[in-house]
């Protein structure tokens, strides 16, 4: 890693020459976020109001959290991205990789309403703030399955054999989902062999590596039951497809989309202003209405219809979510990916 970074930084002076010089008032702020309906929502709920208020244009850099982290690592020392949205888990990896700046939380007025659980610290440093929770729940085709499955065991029901889906380790939810299954099956994280054995028995149509692939499989009927994000599932339901989303009795695993300021950015003040806009009640409401992500700020008034679709349901709160210690999950990322390749896929 060190070698590659050195080589890259020494070989890029040609590009530096063309880089615009840092100005006091930036013309634009580059923000990395996800594609599809997520990106659209960030654009209209956060970026557009931010530009209207400050006159600073937002240049989106679209990619999944993992792709964004790869970019940040490759750009270390001379970042193009100023602010990055990344999911829980990848956020911890980014902090470990040293690509995140300290967020001066005191200078963000709207951070006063931020839930404690959504302020992520490494010692005294705040490296991330939450901008909305989402869950990986049970999603099913209502034409084929009339009653919402009560348990995650339904994935192994022979009626649905060959037509189920769960995330692959290439998806940011893949490894945590194995932890989740392991936990609800009563195994300890030290010995996941029983869970791996059950995953081996799973007759899946698809191990999805992107949320879009899962949505596509549900839409085409290739998959009739499986784990899918509440955001993607509700988007399908809202478009009139025969899809249902439910929280089985064992619960659902959840995580959040977080905001980060990139270490070495020349646009630190604008980045803080962007985060302030994102943590505002208007942005929280807008994101909840568009993506059904649970707000990480406490001052958002939601309608019943939207509340019903949030990861914690109508009456719940952040406290009801099954959130994992990401450092524990990340420590197992490599060996679980390897085990998955060798034992589950084969």
């Amino acid at each position, binding site marked *: 890693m*060190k070698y590659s970074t050195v080589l890259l930084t020494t070989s890029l002076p040609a590009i530096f020459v063309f880089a615009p010089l840092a100005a006091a008032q930036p013309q634009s702020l580059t923000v990395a976020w996800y594609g599809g309906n997520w990106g659209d929502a960030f654009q209209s709920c956060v970026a557009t109001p931010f530009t209207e208020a400050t006159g600073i244009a937002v240049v989106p850099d679209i990619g999944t959290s993992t792709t964004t982290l790869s970019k940040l690592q490759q750009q270390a020392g001379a970042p193009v991205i100023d602010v990055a949205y990344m999911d829980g888990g990848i956020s911890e990896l980014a902090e470990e990789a040293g690509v995140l700046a300290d967020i001066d939380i005191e200078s963000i007025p709207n951070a006063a309403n931020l839930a404690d659980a959504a302020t992520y610290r490494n010692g005294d440093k705040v490296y991330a703030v939450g901008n909305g929770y989402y869950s990986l729940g049970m999603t099913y085709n209502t034409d084929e399955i009339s009653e919402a499955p009560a348990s995650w065991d339904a994935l192994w029901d022979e009626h649905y054999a060959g037509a189920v889906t769960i995330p692959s380790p290439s998806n*940011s939810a893949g490894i945590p989902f194995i932890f989740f299954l392991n936990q609800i099956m009563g195994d300890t994280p030290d010995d996941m062999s029983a869970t791996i054995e059950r995953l081996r028995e799973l007759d899946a149509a698809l191990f999805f590596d992107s949320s879009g692939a899962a949505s596509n499989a549900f839409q085409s009927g290739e998959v009739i039951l499986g784990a899918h994000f509440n955001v993607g599932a509700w988007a399908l339901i809202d478009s009139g497809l025969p899809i249902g989303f439910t929280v089985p009795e064992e619960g659902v695993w959840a995580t959040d989309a977080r905001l980060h300021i990139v270490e070495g950015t020349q646009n630190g003040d604008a980045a803080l202003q962007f985060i302030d806009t994102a943590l505002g009640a208007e942005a929280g409401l807008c994101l909840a209405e568009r993506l059904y992500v649970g707000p990480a700020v406490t001052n958002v008034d939601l309608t019943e219809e939207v509340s019903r679709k949030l990861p914690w349901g109508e009456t719940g709160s952040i406290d009801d979510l099954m959130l994992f210690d990401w450092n524990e999950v990340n420590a197992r990322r490599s060996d679980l990916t390897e085990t998955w390749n060798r034992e589950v896929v084969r």
Partner: protein
Amino acid sequence: MTASRSVILGLVALPLVYFTAFFLVPLMTVFVASLTDAQQGGMTFSNYARILLDEYHWSVIAVTFRLGILTTLICIVLGYPLAWYLVRIVKWRTWRRICVILLVLPLFTSNIVRSFGWMVLLGRNGLVNETLQAGGLIERPIRFLGTETGILIGLVYILLPFVVLTIGNALAKVDHSLEQASADLGASSASTFWHVTFPLSIPGVVSGSIIVFALAVSAYVTPALLSGGRVTVLAVLVFQQYSSVFNFHYGGALAITLLVFTLLMIAIASLVSRLGAR
């Protein structure tokens, strides 16, 4: 003379700088990372040992190259007659142009979109299975997605135009007087084809094959989408290491292994075709 030399130098310098900055430097970065120890940072061959001394990786390499070879063979078998039709049969120039446009048109759309299209076509309730079931050919839907067959169908569709264009180009360059001479000397049209036309078109077949093979073994999007995460090829392993595990050393070694094996296969194929031409 001097002026023209400096013009040539100027013309060569730009692509050379581009090639160095955007191909050689990233490739060297990957290569250096692949020889670096993830923990200690020193030079090591352990990343390669991890791949080459492990049966699992050899099985992935086998799947990758099996798909590459089959894709290339099918593309040639399908592409040659198609190129023949375009160059030799079609007389009306406008129709030929329309055919060429139809052939290259899919190249203007993203691989992702086309692969998603195949996901819909090859699915359990997709057009292919529905047609086969309606025709009474099968009782239950055949599983295409998540199998090597599904990936093969997608790769052949995406890479076929490259073979048709290179073979078509070679066929168009074949001197008709040689074929006429062969016919005048009493050879049948089949004999003329096998002994005159086909050998002359081999450069097109070889270059088309190299393009298709190299693109097929390094393809990520099509195998990733059509395998549904159930078939692993080298490119998928590389992506996994870079995008999810963040081990650029092992991922780099996987990428270099893929590159070396691809170059080896191409070298062997060129050698065989050269020996065959003698």
